[in-house]
């Protein structure tokens, strides 16, 4: 049908003729897309412009009296020199949590895809289910589990893995553990989608060709699951870097992450220009890292 469509005279009908890719053409598309697009333009694109503008305001104004636009680029310098510590810490914590998620998530996704047979769908449901309970309540639970007089600390002290006055709560370990736990599903689901598509015969072929199971995994399964690894690590790393809930509930105030700083600059200190500059820097840093990473990993499609 498509081969003749190019030469046949186009009949004028009330139904739009199908395009070569099977999609219709016509004004109908705009009726469908414009409401959603307008919402995103108004409340995602324009706010981003406001954020850039706010980051260049004169820092001597206030949110209620208003700010003067003085293209005060020095805000970025102030923000960076005051808060490079939290910024680096966030990237570090985010990276470590992403790595932990990758290990745990891979084992789980691999198990669901290859090891549980007809229980696959039920297992997937079970993976998502815990994450339907409030994020804050889950994090508070970890606070209880890792508490100084809790079972975990007691056990570790009995085993002498932790000193008698050693603690887990209010340490970087607790924050990274919380981030790892809370963002695990963002890793498992894309990994599962990739691993589940792998043709079993390829793995069988590798073992027919005398690869042991480690070589088979490393040369066949892992490369074929890379799209899932790339999107999973991105979907985990980005929210983990910006998160401040885990840091506030499980960490200490003198080891803040950048999200904690931005939040308190906005809501407690009312220092909008600096907060906006920090927010912009976080966004740009993440964008640069993501672009670099995606190019390195050689995957162009993100989702």
């Amino acid at each position, binding site marked *: 049908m498509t081969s003749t469509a190019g030469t046949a005279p186009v009949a004028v009908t009330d139904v739009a003729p199908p395009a070569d890719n099977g*999609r*219709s*053409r*016509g004004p*109908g*598309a705009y009726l*469908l*897309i414009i*409401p*959603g*697009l307008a*919402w*995103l333009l108004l*409340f*995602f694109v324009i*706010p*981003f412009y*406001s*954020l850039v503008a*706010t980051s260049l305001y004169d820092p001597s104004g206030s*949110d209620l009296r208003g700010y003067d636009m003085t293209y005060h680029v020095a805000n970025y310098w102030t923000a960076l020199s005051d808060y490079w510590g939290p910024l680096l810490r966030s990237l570090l914590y985010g990276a470590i949590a992403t790595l932990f998620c990758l290990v745990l998530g891979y*084992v*789980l996704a*691999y*198990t*669901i895809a290859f*090891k549980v047979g007809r229980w696959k769908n039920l297992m997937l*449901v*079970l993976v*998502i*289910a*815990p994450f*339907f*309970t*409030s*994020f804050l*309540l*889950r994090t*508070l*639970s970890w*606070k*209880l589990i890792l*508490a100084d*007089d809790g079972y975990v600390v007691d056990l570790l002290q009995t085993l002498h893995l932790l000193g008698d006055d050693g603690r887990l709560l209010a340490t970087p370990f607790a924050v990274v553990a919380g981030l790892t*736990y809370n963002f695990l599903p963002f890793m498992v689901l894309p990994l599962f989608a990739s691993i589940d598509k792998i043709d079993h015969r390829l793995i069988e072929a590798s073992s027919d060709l005398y690869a042991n199971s480690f070589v088979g995994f490393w040369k066949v399964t892992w490369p074929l699951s890379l799209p899932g690894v790339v999107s999973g690590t*991105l979907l985990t790393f*980005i*929210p983990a870097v*910006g*998160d401040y*809930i885990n840091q506030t*509930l499980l960490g200490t105030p003198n080891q803040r992450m950048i*999200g904690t700083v*931005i*939040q308190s600059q*906005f809501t407690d200190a009312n220092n909008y220009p600096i907060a906006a500059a920090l927010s912009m820097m*976080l*966004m740009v840093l993440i964008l640069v890292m993501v672009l670099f990473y995606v190019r390195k990993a050689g995957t162009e499609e*993100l*989702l």
Partner: protein
Amino acid sequence: MMWLRRNIVLILGLLVLVYTFIPIFVVVLMSFNDPSSRNVYRFDGFTLDNWTNFCGPAGMCDALWKSVQIGFLATLVATILGTLAAFALVRWDFAFRSSTNLLIFLPMAAPEIVLGSSLLALFVSAGFAGQLGFWTILVAHIMFCLSFVVVTVRSRLAGMSDTLEQAAMDLYATPQQTFWRVTFPLVFPGILGAALLSFSLSFDDFIITNLNAGTETTFPMYVWGAAQRGVPMQVNAVGTLMFVVSVVIVVGGELNNRRRQRALA
């Protein structure tokens, strides 16, 4: 030993699954806790008080109700706008289609703190600094739910073959009849899934909400505030309820799927 070697991956996988349930176990346990004092957060004794006196803590049920209202409205608007957009993206060709796809992807890839702070910057620049509250939260929630709806419905639509629709057309169904009797029922599970996802995203959001809420309090904000003073055990009853309801919905959907597939086979 052989058995262990053969099943090591399965065992590790199940251990990871168990690990994801540890905090849920704590939430359920604490919903039956009888705390000795407000400042001590550990299991002291069994009680049903948290369930019988559910709305006991001042303000908790108001916050919960506020979250339900916002979640419902945000889901309604985001699902409608998102479904329309998904149809446009899969079924229609139009100018700047690929840049629209990118624009829909971006809110999901940006950290929440950036989304929340840019919206706050907009509201403040536009002179709404004193009027932050229900409506600004709602606007923000619709914004971040929208992309997730588009992506969910789009994948359902893209995975659907148009043979049934063509059959309907061949049997002289009008475009309206084809849409409402064939296309819509086929896409509906995707729309329903998108709506459930929206509701849970909206209901659970803290970071974006907190920046744009003014003096309004949603349930996550209530929990956050309580976490600084001492958490009333009733919040764990809410957490348990959320868990049970979502499991019932998801497992119910899964069983319904199986029943249907068996009926078709």
